[in-house]
Structures are given as structure tokens and as C-alpha cells.
């Protein structure tokens, strides 16, 4: 096969990704640390950050808050479908690109399904402020999977016949076995993965309920992985049913217990969406997109992100009834006795 002209890697090349992992301490050790430390230690300016979850399901919201507080520059963000997590990062860039900036996104979908479009995405894209590489959900999932498998690419049919083959690094070739065209997608090996899960032990063995999304693939593909979890549980409980473990400790660098870490998004068995808060955040950003006024968005960040020390402080701002409502709404989806 001829080498694709103009090919470049964002994040790590397959050989770099292998090298990083080979030289890493993979032992089963206590990886608990404060979120602030995890973000400072494992994320750097210019990194390719792989974002877990799907739309507003189990997104790593607490981690994005902490990233905004820390400030990062020239990030590449990679995900399949996302909502609030890139919204928080993009909103920070809208307010002060010298403090927080996104250079590039590689993704399939940035919006909110029932909760509408992302004003942040429209703001940045329609002003040409970020590089965009469009893919499909399967494309991005397969790219992470190729990275997780230690392969430079995976074949898929997904982008065939679409303009995604024109605006991305997809390489369409004739299959050497069938003679028919097939698309080859370059692996995505982020520098760091940010993931929220339902439960984990101190070593980083993770349990996910509901959709696995592409979280395991992103974690396995990345050089480093920061995981927040709703519940930190005993190792013995986790291994009592090892099939529940979807991300093994080997792929995790930091584990932080952050209840409500995906709020105002949803997290199966824990809480359903807080659509009102999503709407409030979007309204502030939409004002800036439409009218250029940043005051509402500024106020949102001042109150909810810069005005607090931790994600726990952010959650504490919500009235008890609100939090309980989100839990109760989820309890209809997954009924269980305590």
C-alpha cells in the first residue's frame, strides 16, 4: 500500500503510544489522589485529550471544571458524541482564549439531542477559531479502538460515500481480499483520557453501568488516564464479578471519587439529566454567540467554576430538592432496593 500523502498524527503516533506504555509503571498500586493533582500531573498544554461518555451521558464534567480552573492551551479534543464536557472547555475559551484554548477537535457530534445545539460549538466554528476534523460515531469509536488494540488503523465502512472521506485523514483503499473499496481510519492515541465511571477500586479497576460508550477504548489507547467515579469501592467487591470490570487498572493513572461527577448530565443508576441547568448554561453562551455579550457566561463561570474550589462545592450550590429530583428520576429507570 502506498503511504497516504500528507498524513500526520495528532496526539501520539502508534510507535510513540507503544513506547509510552512500555516505559510506564503498570503495577497494581494505590492511584487515589485529589482531582486537582491528577489534572495538574497528567494533562499538559498541547495535549490530545480523549473525552469519555456519550453526549450528556457519563461525561467527565468534574474533570473539565478542574481543567478550566487550571487553564490549558492549544488542546486537541477527541471524542465521538459529546455535549457538556466540551461545552465547559469551549465556554472557557470564549471568555479568555489566553487562559484556555482548544486548537482542534476530532469528533462526530457536538450537541445535546433533546437539549438542543451547542452554542459554544457554533460560536467557535462559525468564527473559524478551531480546526475541525469531522468523523462519524463509529469512525471515532473505531479510531480509539485501533489505538487500544495497538494497531495503526482499523478498516470500517462508515465514512464511505460521504464527504467525511474528504475532510479527514481517512484512507479509502481497495480491499486486497475482496477487491471492493474499504476505508482505513488512523488510530487515535490521546496523550490523556478523561473518563467518569460508576465505580472503581483504588487501583483503577472500573465498573460501568448502562452504555460502555467508548470509554475502555479511549483509556486503553491513551498514554495516561484520569478516572473519576461515583463510588470508590473495595477491590474485593470489584473482583467478586471480574466480568464487570470494563477498564482494567493497567490502563488507569489516577482515580478520584467524585459523586455527581457527570452532573448536570446523567449517570445510570445514580442520576438523570438536569435539563434546567443545561439550559441555563446554554442560554448564557447563546447570548454571547448571538449578541456578543459575555456578561452572562462570565457570571456563570465566576459562580460555578472559578468561584469554587472543588466540584463538590459546585454540586453543593444546588438545592437538595434538585439533586434528589435527579436521583429520583433515575430511580425510575433502574429500580433497586438499597
Amino acid at each position, binding site marked *: 500500500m502506498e503511504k497516504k500523502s500528507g498524513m500526520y498524527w495528532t496526539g501520539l503516533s502508534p510507535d510513540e503510544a507503544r513506547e509510552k506504555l512500555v516505559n510506564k509503571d503498570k503495577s497494581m498500586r494505590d492511584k487515589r489522589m485529589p482531582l486537582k493533582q491528577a489534572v495538574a500531573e497528567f494533562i499538559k498544554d498541547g495535549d490530545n485529550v480523549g473525552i469519555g461518555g456519550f453526549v450528556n451521558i457519563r461525561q467527565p464534567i468534574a474533570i473539565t471544571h478542574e481543567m478550566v480552573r487550571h487553564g490549558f492551551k492549544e488542546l486537541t479534543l477527541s471524542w465521538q458524541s459529546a455535549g457538556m464536557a466540551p461545552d465547559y472547555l469551549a465556554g472557557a475559551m470564549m471568555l479568555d482564549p489566553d487562559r484556555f484554548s482548544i486548537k482542534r477537535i476530532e469528533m462526530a457530534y457536538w450537541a445535546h*439531542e433533546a437539549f438542543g445545539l451547542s452554542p459554544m460549538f457554533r460560536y467557535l466554528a462559525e468564527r473559524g477559531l478551531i480546526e475541525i476534523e469531522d468523523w462519524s460515531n463509529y469512525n471515532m469509536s473505531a479510531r480509539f479502538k485501533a489505538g487500544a488494540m495497538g494497531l495503526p488503523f482499523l478498516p470500517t465502512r*462508515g465514512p464511505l460515500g460521504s464527504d467525511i472521506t474528504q475532510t479527514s485523514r481517512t484512507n479509502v483503499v481497495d480491499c486486497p481480499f475482496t477487491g471492493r473499496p474499504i476505508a482505513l481510519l488512523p488510530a487515535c492515541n490521546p496523550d490523556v483520557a478523561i473518563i467518569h465511571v460508576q465505580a472503581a477500586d483504588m487501583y483503577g479497576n472500573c465498573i460501568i453501568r448502562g*452504555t460502555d460508550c467508548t470509554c475502555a477504548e479511549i483509556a486503553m489507547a491513551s498514554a495516561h488516564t484520569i478516572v473519576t467515579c461515583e463510588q470508590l469501592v473495595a477491590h474485593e467487591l470489584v473482583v467478586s464479578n471480574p466480568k464487570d470490570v470494563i477498564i482494567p487498572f493497567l490502563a488507569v493513572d489516577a482515580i478520584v471519587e467524585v459523586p455527581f461527577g457527570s452532573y448536570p448530565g446523567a449517570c445510570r443508576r445514580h442520576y438523570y439529566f438536569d435539563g434546567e441547568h443545561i439550559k441555563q448554561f446554554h442560554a448564557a453562551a447563546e447570548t454571547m454567540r448571538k449578541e456578543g455579550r459575555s456578561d452572562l457566561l462570565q457570571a456563570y463561570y465566576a459562580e460555578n467554576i472559578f468561584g469554587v474550589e472543588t466540584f463538590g462545592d459546585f454540586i453543593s450550590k444546588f438545592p437538595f430538592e434538585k439533586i434528589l429530583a435527579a436521583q429520583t428520576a433515575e430511580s425510575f429507570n433502574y429500580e433497586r432496593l438499597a
Partner: protein
Amino acid sequence: MTASTDYTAQEIIVVAGSKILEDRKVVFVGTGLPMVASLLAKLTHAPGLIPVFEAGAVGPPLKVGLPLSVGDSKTFTSATYLKGLNAAFEMTQRGFADIGFIGGAEVDMYGNLNSTMIGNFPDGYQKPKVRLPGSGGASDMAASCERTILIVPHDKRKFNKKLQYVTSPGFLDGSPNARYNVGLQGKGPYRVITTKAILDFDEETHRMRILQVFPGETVESVQAATGFELLVAPNVSTFPAPTVEEVRMIREDIDPTQAFVKRSPKQTSDGIDSNDQMPFLTPKNERMLHASQQS
């Protein structure tokens, strides 16, 4: 079955979509109206319908109500198989999905869809006039489901001769075997459901064709709202208005909070659904929905 007299455009789309779904088939359900239509089908003529959601749920009974997302917790309760995105799309690529049910912001006469951008492509790709959400799973569903059903609001700006960006392939340029020749699987678009009509595609030319019009519409009125020339099937009939019971089910049982089916949808100035009236699904509504469907 009394015909409803106050149904909305979205409601007749839902009813039409529902009726196209056959019982005991596998439907890969996109977000929004396809979810409402699939749930209506399951509650009426197609209890054995097998919904698949791209975040990974296969075959959920959907008894805990309408999902707000294709990764919603509600899609996983009592599902028979539950993994992540790769698994769902791999199954589809393998041939497990009979029908894919997707929407788009723009469609052409060969059933290709755009949900990526409005603007000047390719030069303006990195600075579009309007940036749409992107493919999500639509491109994959279009590539690998055996057939697809498309939902597009009928509007001259959305039915265009040439798409600004092809996100989800239909019959491509309409030439014979065009899909097969570029490596795609599946037989391509099956139906287009709009706010005015149900359309299919001519077997020879793969051009879009008026099959049935909605009440109050004519072949002429549908053509007038379309940016390219439509073919017309022999004996175009009028798709019957939804029944009072169908409309009641949509409003009371399936989407009581108007998560997707709005009584009066708002549009932004640039014609993009803003969804800015999206209500929060309160626990109270939740409980009612849950109760009614468990019975």
C-alpha cells in the same frame, strides 16, 4: 378510529414513521422523532420490534419511557445486550440492522443527507455559515443498515439539488450499483418522511418519488416546497390523518414533556431547531409515564 383534527406536523411524521416499521424487525434508532416513532410502533402494531441504539442497547422493551438520548439510561433497562458504540456499529456493519431511522438538515434527490454544515464547501469547511452538530452515527447507519428511513422537515431550503456536505450516503449519484461500487452495504434509503409527504425512490434512477401526501397537501404543493424535481408514483394517495388515539398516545403516554414532539416548535432565525423550549423531564411526569407503560 376517529381522525385527529389538531395533530401537528411532527405528530403525523411520528405516525407515518411508526407505520413503516414492521413487527419483529431490527430498527437502529436515531435520536429525536425516530425514538418517538419506534416507541409508538412498539406500543401498537409492532410489539416485537427490536430497537437498537448506537450507544449500545439492543432490544430494550422501553417500558420506562421515552429516552432523551440514544445513550439514555432508559434504553438499557431490560435490554438483552448492552455494550458500547463499537459493538452497536459492528453489529450493524455485520448486517444485523434491518432498518436505520435517521434525520438530517438537508437532503438531495438521491437521499443523501447533510447534518454537518451549511456554508461554502470545501473552502468554507473550517468556517461554516451554520455549524450543525455533525454526523453522530447517521453516516454509519446510512452506510451499513440494510435500508434507511429518513426524516426531513419539508422546506425548499432543505430539499436541495446539491448538498453542501454529504454526511450520510443515500444512493450517491443515483447510478446503478453506486453504493456497492464505493464499498457500501445495504440497499440504501427506503422512505423519506417529511412534514408534507411520504416519498420513496425510483428503482431504476434512484430519484426521490412522491408516494403519499399528507392531508391538505397535493403533488403540486409538495413539489413546490422541494428544490429539485420529484418523480411521482402511480396513484399517489393521501396518508390518513393520525387518529385521536395515536395523537393521545404521543402526547400523553410517549412524549408528555414534549422532549421531541413539540406542540409549536420554535425555529431560530437561521432555520435550525433551537430546542430552547426544552423542558426538564420532571420526576412527576416520569412517574406518570412509567406507570402508564407498565400497565
